[in-house]
């Protein structure tokens, strides 16, 4: 099973039980920051008439996994994108590159690590929903198999089309995410990026990186070839010059 969280913004009442559960589950300081930080991995933001949860989207082809030079991030087959702090060198490419602005840094520490929602992998492995989904009193945050959650979301769209924007956010964005969002307000109004490509972002860099072996082989041959030609030319010229010098010397004698 590939787990996914479905967040239905129309059901969210902004009680922040999910935030509190997340804090407790992950031993984070109790104070809730208004935005995502290294110490607050999910927030409920009031936006006009609706609430929107912010958290790691757990992409199917995550940008953070691709950019990290030391493979500190990995995508689990059952959904979560995990972070191994013991590998991290602190280059912050993940923070810079994440299209959802999720990984956060411990800016207040001398030896900081990156932090983000990890979708309670131990709970998922035990067959339970992540802490946030398990405490939600209204069913705004639910958890289940990704395909089933997509079907469930589409069922809701079909049942009450007037209630929703006719799209499930996260099905196709940057190759799909393991957090799916339904909303009555436009996604842009909720502060979600609507300009993201459907193809996973790592494709953009892989297109270039995959050409490296070609550059090495072709470049090496080309450079060696140029050297071979120019060097030979110099040698021939030197030999001719020597020959000419030898002749003129012998003539002088």
């Amino acid at each position, binding site marked *: 099973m590939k787990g996914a969280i479905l967040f239905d913004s129309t059901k969210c009442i902004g009680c922040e039980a999910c935030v509190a559960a997340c804090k407790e589950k992950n031993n984070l300081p109790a104070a809730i920051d208004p935005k995502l930080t290294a110490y607050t991995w999910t927030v409920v933001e009031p936006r006009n008439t609706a609430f929107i949860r912010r958290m790691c989207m757990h992409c199917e082809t995550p*940008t953070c996994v691709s950019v990290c030079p030391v*493979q500190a991030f990995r995508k689990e087959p059952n959904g979560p994108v995990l972070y191994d702090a013991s590998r991290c060198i*602190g280059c*912050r*490419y993940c923070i810079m590159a994440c299209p959802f602005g999720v990984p956060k840094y411990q800016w*207040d520490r001398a030896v900081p690590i990156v932090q983000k929602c990890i979708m309670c992998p131990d709970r998922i492995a035990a067959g339970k929903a992540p802490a946030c989904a398990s405490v939600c009193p209204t069913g705004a945050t639910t958890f289940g198999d990704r395909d089933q959650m997509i079907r469930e979301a589409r069922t809701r769209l079909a049942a009450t089309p007037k209630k929703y924007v006719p799209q499930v956010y996260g099905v196709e964005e940057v190759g799909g995410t393991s957090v799916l969002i339904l909303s009555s307000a436009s996604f842009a109004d909720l502060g979600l990026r609507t300009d993201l490509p459907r193809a996973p972002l790592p494709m*953009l*860099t892989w297109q270039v990186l995959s050409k490296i072996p070609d550059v090495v082989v072709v*470049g090496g041959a080309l450079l060696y070839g140029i050297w071979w030609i120019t060097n030979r030319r110099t040698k021939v010229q030197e030999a001719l010059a020597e020959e000419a010098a030898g002749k003129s010397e012998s003539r002088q004698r």
Partner: protein
Amino acid sequence: MTMTNGRRWPEMSFWRLVFLVLVAAGSVATILRFTRGLGAATNLSDQFPWGLWIGFDVLTGVGLAAGGFTITAVVYIFNLKRFTPIIRPTVLTAFLGYLFVIFGLMYDLGQPHRIWHALVMWNPRSVMFEVAWCVMLYTTVLSLEFSPIVFERLNLERPRRIVRAISVPLVIVGVILSTLHQSSLGSLYLIVPEKLHPLWYSPLLPVFFFTSAIAAGLAMVIVESYLCQRAFKHHLAMDLLEPLGRAMVVVLSVYGILRLQDLARRGALAGLRWPDYEGTMFLLEIGLGVLLPILLLAIPRIRGTQPGLVTGAFLVVLGFVMNRLNVSVTGMERASGVSYFPSWMEFAISLALVAGGFAIFGLAVRYLPIFPQGIRAPREAEAPAWLVVPSTPAFAPGASPAVSQPGARGGTR
């Protein structure tokens, strides 16, 4: 040694003072950076995680050191031996440039003590991983390319001969590694199409970074020769530097055309607004750093004069620095939702590192055979080369005829 006697120091004392101030400020900032952390020392944030140290120390530092692979390729691969005299100062500049980058990175990384992780924990899908490996390997190549100078100074004939024997493969490896990571620094930004402003985001970023680095690397050779002339009372070898100016016109033109063509094709020029922030910075970058130097350097009467050539080169370097900072800072600000300006500590550390680079360059010139006499005729010189260097100005016109003598073989071969 005539070089180290008193006469020059009083003139240099202003710069010594500047150096000491920068080192002092940099030391304070260093202590704060490593005791209080990045949040206290920098103006970086979750919204703006990469700032001056990435934009200037890394992106700019690597690019300005590109003269190293360009000039070695010109001399060893293209066999244009008359440029041999500028190899040593250029390789020295490149080597120091890469050390500058690595030191800068040690400040920027949150966990610098784990920098070795990139050696054992591979992620071949990461541009950063590739850059890390290339920078590391190329720094090794540069240290090998630089080593004959040290061997010569220490009269170690055997190791010097070994390095000389592998010089061509070494240069080829260096050129390939440089091509890869110079362009990859641009590829770092390919993954943020939704964040980097369309005036700078392009699928061609790696090509732009590579081409502009060649121009900037060549410009740095001229700038560095000019600074040496000021510091060590050398004369500029205009006969060697003027052709570099010409090459810069070609490279910059290719770069400029690629940039404008790409902008036009992507329709990004329609988004160019004057006087908005990005538009102004873009026009300054292209106008001052690309178009103006092309104009100046394309005119033989300007390129052929020392002030003209040096001005052109300075503009190219300026334009290059602006480009890298525009990509890494200006172009990223709007999407981040915050504005970023470096803290005094970020400036202090970058400047102290630059000052350190200058100081080491000065020391190297003083104690190692960097300038032509040492290269051209190490065997002919009676005295050890480093003694010969100071008494005869390296870039003196008098030295040039011997230097550009056809058929003369480079001593480093």
